[in-house]
């Protein structure tokens, strides 16, 4: 499939609370559906945490099993524990069941409305209602089925967002949904391809600011960004059989996504093959790894194993949301993070010079480093990775 469902969320606890009262859960079903739930438990702290976790976990189970949405909602309404203070069983929620083809089932209960954004406008979601009498009260859930198109976003948040700033003279009734929508529209029109991670972070941070940096409630926002899969190719190492050089060049030329070439000899093979200039960027000076190079058609050209070993180290150990030092390895990390599917084309030639005992750093074998990198990308960053050796 050529599409990706990018989901991310960001959450802040109510000021001075150690435990979140909101809960966001996301799972991938074996049939590639993405199921996500944002639940907001009544009150705050531990009790709210239990209510929201319980609600979200149950919903996730139902949705993963593709149980009828209304039936799922009703089961939850009937089984939630009852709040001893307010005598109602209560955790609001928004739940999404998204198929890879974009068909999405939504289920909402008392959270601020789910937003659907396309082409700089919010779309109306036509919702049906379902009511159920429980022991204590009458509850109404809203459900719908919509079809996402490439570039669409779904945005959901807890009332910590819409009610942020409530009671202050500038915002006596809080931020309110229409102002939140206006804010979201402004952000997206400034940065049309903003990631789900950045958008959710942005909204929550703005809400916190409206609460004068002391959130009066748990603040959570989750964003779904339905878009074309971003593909990246990494060519590294000369082929074991030098007759395979034209094949590497051909693969480079035919690949439609972004391309990284890593390795001195490798970049020469590609540059010669496509007839491009290859120039070392002498402004890109960092002590531990060589500078990047510039070549037409490649998003990044770097030295080989030193850079790749540093990339492995960064992906494994560093906080990648706060990249400051931009050397070739960090540039490569940024490209990896921004990609969904990565195709490594790995040459198996061994440079004997790298095995020299006098080398001050241990270089190891390219194949081992690439396998390690691929495993980290798959397991820690959930990327789709394929490796071809030549």
């Amino acid at each position, binding site marked *: 499939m050529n599409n990706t469902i990018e989901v991310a969320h960001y959450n802040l606890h109510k000021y001075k609370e150690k435990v979140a009262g909101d809960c966001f859960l996301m799972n991938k079903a074996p049939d590639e559906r993405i199921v996500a739930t944002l639940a907001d438990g009544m009150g705050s702290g531990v009790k709210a945490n239990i209510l929201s976790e319980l609600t979200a976990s149950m919903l996730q189970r139902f949705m993963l099993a593709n149980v009828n949405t209304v039936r799922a909602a009703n089961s939850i309404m009937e089984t939630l524990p009852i709040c001893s203070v307010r005598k109602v069983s209560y955790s609001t929620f928004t739940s999404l069941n998204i198929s890879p083809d974009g068909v999405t089932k939504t289920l909402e209960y008392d959270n601020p409305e789910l937003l659907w954004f396309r082409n700089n406008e919010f779309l109306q979601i036509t919702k049906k209602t379902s009511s159920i009498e429980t022991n204590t009260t009458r509850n109404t859930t809203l459900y719908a089925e919509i079809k996402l198109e490439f570039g669409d976003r779904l945005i959901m948040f807890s009332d910590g967002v819409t009610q942020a700033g409530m009671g202050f003279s500038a915002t006596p009734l809080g931020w309110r949904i229409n102002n939140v929508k206006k804010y979201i529209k402004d952000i997206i029109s400034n940065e049309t391809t903003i990631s789900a991670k950045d958008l959710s972070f942005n909204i929550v941070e703005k809400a916190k600011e409206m609460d004068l940096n002391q959130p009066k409630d748990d603040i959570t926002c989750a964003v779904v960004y339905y878009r074309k899969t971003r593909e990246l190719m990494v060519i590294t190492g000369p082929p074991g059989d030098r007759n395979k050089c034209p094949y590497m060049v051909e693969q480079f030329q035919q690949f439609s996504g972004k391309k990284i070439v890593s*390795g*001195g*000899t490798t*970049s*020469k093979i590609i540059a010669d093959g496509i007839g491009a200039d*290859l*120039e*070392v*960027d*002498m402004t890109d*000076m960092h*002590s531990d*790894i*060589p*500078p990047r*190079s510039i070549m037409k058609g490649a998003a990044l*050209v770097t*030295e*080989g*194993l*030193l850079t790749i070993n540093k990339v492995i180290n960064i992906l494994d150990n560093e906080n990648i949301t706060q990249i400051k030092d931009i050397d070739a390895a960090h540039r490569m990390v940024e490209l990896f993070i921004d990609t969904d599917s990565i195709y490594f084309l790995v040459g198996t030639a061994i*440079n*004997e*010079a*790298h*095995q*020299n005992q*006098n*080398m*001050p*750093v241990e*270089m190891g074998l390219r194949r081992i480093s690439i396998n390690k990198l691929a495993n980290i990308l798959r397991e820690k960053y959930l990327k789709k990775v394929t490796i071809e050796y030549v």
Partner: protein
Amino acid sequence: MKITVQICSGTACYVMGGAELLSISEHLTPDELEQVDIKGIMCLGLCENYNPNTPYVKIDDEIIKNVTIETLTERIRLAIKAKAEK
């Protein structure tokens, strides 16, 4: 025509001292810098044996082996002098 200095920044050269060579312009006078064109190069392709003489630098068409910042400064000065005498 300026004198071309190509410093190999391939893996084997870089770890054997090539990293330092990339800062060669700090060791030359402004007059000398006027006469040379200093570039990095991804790989000169000279290290493909078990015991290479890395790092390598190419000054115009001449390959220099086991280069240090001192020998490189000296070789560039010699090249400038030779060119002036031509």
